[in-house]
């Protein structure tokens, strides 16, 4: 169990973390998701003991982390650019954490060789033990870094933008592979990402961060379906932002109405995802200004009344059936509208 309470950290006038509290359950794969500067990497570094908080506390399995040195925390850290030791072979990199052990815990050479062999099998680099980091591809380096971190049997595995430096295909494969590894080894892992797709696909629990604060914590589906704040809604995918007016629990959003319980009467903001907008025949809500074919879908750039721009994404079949042309006036129906109190 990792308990983070009221953590704060400032770099000069910039608040990297502002009163962050969070609980990480053992066995979970947790994503810290947020834009750059949201404090997610700072939080990760404080967990590893590479940075120190100005206020608040971190408890690792009941121990106050403030009293533990980095090297005594047994936290595995995979750096964004891997930080492999260039002058060591793959096997020596993986063995590093075992070789620097002291006292009765120090394994002998045969034990080290055996563990390294097992880890290299695990990360599918069996034949590459003698290679040097600069002779490996990005994805292979990533897996060496992971094997190196796992060698010391960490209580907590931390990954900083683990797929940031890889190309799209490798990234997808590695994601699935990491998910399996996490489940097979029964790890507790936290990874940092700015890619909402990665967070939603990989994590058991997503922590959305913004400006040093936690905006929302929840399962990927929960976060996506019930975003707590306008920031979360916008960060998890494209969104059309519209002005709304709330009267007695109902919101008027352009040509539509939506439920808005718990929101006081008066001006509000509403969001509609582009794929939640359907084109209906015979209406008159918007003009198509531009159309872009994106593989199986078509994106329509629309102008609503009062010169408000919006996007809709519809599938190719509906697009062909409706025979839409640039300049057409169309009717729109919103399947889901999220309403928030005006900021």
């Amino acid at each position: 169990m990792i308990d983070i309470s009221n953590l704060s950290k400032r770099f000069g006038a910039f608040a990297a973390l502002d009163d962050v509290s969070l609980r990480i359950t053992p066995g979970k794969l947790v994503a810290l998701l947020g834009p750059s500067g949201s404090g997610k990497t700072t939080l990760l570094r404080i967990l590893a003991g590479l940075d120190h908080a100005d206020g608040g506390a971190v408890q690792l399995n009941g121990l106050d982390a403030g009293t533990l040195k980095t090297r005594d925390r047994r936290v595995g850290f995979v750096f964004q650019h891997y930080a492999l030791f260039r002058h060591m072979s793959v096997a020596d990199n993986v063995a590093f954490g075992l070789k620097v052990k002291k006292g009765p815990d120090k394994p002998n050479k045969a034990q080290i060789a055996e563990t390294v062999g097992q880890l290299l099998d695990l990360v599918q680099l069996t034949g590459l033990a003698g290679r040097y980091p600069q002779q490996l591809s990005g994805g292979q380096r990533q897996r060496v870094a992971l094997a190196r971190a796992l060698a010391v049997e960490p209580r907590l595995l931390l990954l900083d933008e683990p797929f940031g430096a890889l190309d799209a295909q490798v990234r997808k494969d590695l994601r699935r592979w990491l998910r399996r590894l996490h489940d097979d080894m029964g790890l507790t892992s936290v990874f940092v990402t700015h890619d909402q797709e990665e967070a939603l696909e990989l994590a058991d629990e997503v922590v959305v961060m913004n400006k040093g604060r936690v905006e929302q914590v929840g399962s990927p589906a929960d976060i996506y379906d019930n975003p707590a704040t306008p920031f979360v809604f916008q960060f998890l995918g494209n969104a059309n932002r519209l002005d709304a007016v709330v009267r007695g629990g109902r919101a008027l959003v352009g040509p539509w109405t939506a439920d808005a319980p718990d929101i006081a009467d008066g001006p509000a903001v509403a969001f509609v995802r582009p794929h939640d907008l359907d084109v209906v025949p015979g209406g008159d809500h918007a003009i198509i200004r531009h159309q872009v074919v994106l593989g199986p879908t078509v994106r329509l750039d629309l102008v609503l009344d009062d010169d408000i721009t919006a996007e809709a994404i519809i599938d190719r079949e509906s697009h062909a059936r409706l025979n839409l042309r640039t300049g057409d006036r169309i009717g729109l129906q919103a399947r889901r509208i999220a309403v928030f109190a005006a900021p």
Partner: protein
Amino acid sequence: MMARPPNLRVIPGFDTTLGLTLALLSLVVLLPLAALVLKAAGLGVAQWLAIVTDPRVLASFRLSFGGAAIAAGLNGIFGLLVAWVLVRYRFPGRKLVDAFIDLPFALPTAVAGIALTALYAPNGWVGQFLPFKVAFTPLGAMLAMVFIGIPFVVRTVEPVLQDLESELEEAAACLGASRAQTFARVILPVIAPALLTGISLAFARAVGEYGSVIFIAGNMPGVSEIAPLLIVTKLEQFDYVGATAIATLMLGLSFALLLAINLLQKWNRQRMGAAS
């Protein structure tokens, strides 16, 4: 087979630049050295051996090469320390210290020698507090060699230390390494090639050093006399043959040592897999 089209290189001027390089190298380096060897070749082998195995000559070689080796070793330690402090810490006056490092490059060596002598003479500011003699002993010669050699180590190690990612040290700490283990296993291997280059430059410089050493060493034949001084002494006695014999041996030894260091570097690079 297709004929190779002319001027295939992207960067032009290979012929011209190589020609100029060889011409300059010949005029400035190779010709004088060739003349030296030619002059010495006038001696028979037996005569040459007789000159260089003279006890006074052997003693001067011991001091020149042995002293330079010790001085280079000390410079390796101190130079690394200075470079570390300059790169890792921010303190007031850092830029000033940084500028001081280069002074031994620019200062006339005689000035350095006289200054060091004044300080370390038995009645000098520092010398009077030391229980042993520094100036006018082989120790003084090594002190001067350390002085003129230190910028070589600092300036070659500094950029490599600057490029050393702090993430490497953080990774080592996360894996359970102590500071000492991190230094020995992670930092030192990375900076070793640059450190070795700096030490070999400092060594080469110390072997050839003349100006500062002759003021502080006392130049007692067989004790604190360096080989370059012996050459000058022989020249002043119009013993040109003796001077050339000593000079050729110096040349040969220096070349062999520098070649050995270069081979060591190459081996080190290959060991680290950088050759791929």
